[in-house]
């Protein structure tokens, strides 16, 4: 990589970054989240490779919203995501299974609030 010219990409100012450009094997992986027109939250819909945040956003627009899947896109470098370890699933999630008292179903709404 001979790049002696490159711009630094920051979160607030995602200028095209050329540092990674030419060796596509070095292009980082990005996770793509899209919010649909009627949705309230961004949903994970896939991933892609790009050399910088601007390219990641444009590629996500081209690959993941071409059939009107959504109206808002987030891209996050995959390395920024910390995921729970599947091996820990038992201790992390099983205990919640038998604690019904944590669900909001144990009291009756007064008449006046029934149509809240």
């Amino acid at each position, binding site marked *: *990589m*001979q*790049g002696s*010219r*490159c*711009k630094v990409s920051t979160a607030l100012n995602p*200028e*095209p970054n*050329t540092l990674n*450009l*030419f060796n*596509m094997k070095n292009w980082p992986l990005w996770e793509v989240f899209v919010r649909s027109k009627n949705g309230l939250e961004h949903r994970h819909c896939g991933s*892609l*490779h*790009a*050399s910088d945040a*601007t*390219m990641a956003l*444009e*590629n996500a*627009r*081209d*690959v993941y919203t*071409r059939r009107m899947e959504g109206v808002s896109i987030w891209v996050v470098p995959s390395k920024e995501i910390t995921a729970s370890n599947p091996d820990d699933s038992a201790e992390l999630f099983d205990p919640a299974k038998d604690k019904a008292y944590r669900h909001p179903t144990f009291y009756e709404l007064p008449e006046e609030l029934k149509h809240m």
Partner: protein
Amino acid sequence: MQNLIQYIYGIADNALILGQRLGELCGHGPNLETDIAMTNIALDLLGQTRSYYQYAAKFSGNEATEDTIAFLRSEREYKNVLLVEQPNTDFAYSIGRQFLFDVYHLLMLEQLQNSSDETLQAIAKKSIKEVSYHKRFSSDWIKRLGDGTEESHAKMQNAINDLWTFTDELFHQTDADKAMVSEQIGVDVTQLKEAYYSIISDILTESTLQIPDLKYFQKGGKQGIHSEHMGYLLADLQYMQRTFPNMNW
């Protein structure tokens, strides 16, 4: 009527031929995302082409349809500029051609949305959103490749140098253009030249690319006199319709 039809050809043929060139990249892009992006642009352009041709077909007579207009004209009846028929020599050429056209295309559509012809106005308004994205996409790639490695910079400069000679034609007016301008239907493209070169120069400078200094520019596409590439391009484009007349998918 003939003036309006020729005027429409001048706009729509650009989209058809450029869409065809981009279609050639399908499956051959540098990577998956760029392959999809370039062919998405092709689909946008072909969608615009269809709108224009459907409109022109209405008063062309001879049972003209969007398909006969797209596939069955002879070479000299196509009025696209030379720029859009240039081949996909390498990615720098493909994206350079796109960039040099997109800047013009957006400027032109911004004026066309004020046309006194309601159909052209409507097509322009819808197309502007698509072309705004095209321009953003191609400009970003010029910056990446220009202000990139020595190799990308050299290839990008080479492509810009070669394609520069085709930029002036964008601002030529045919007789049909002049007639439509006088009826407030058409865009006076001569007025776009200054803004065009200013925008292009800014982006090239930002990309650390040299702005070519040319004294002689190619022309002829708008009169139907095309480069040596057009014959081969039309052979691909027209082959199916000519071999199997009235074929349907």
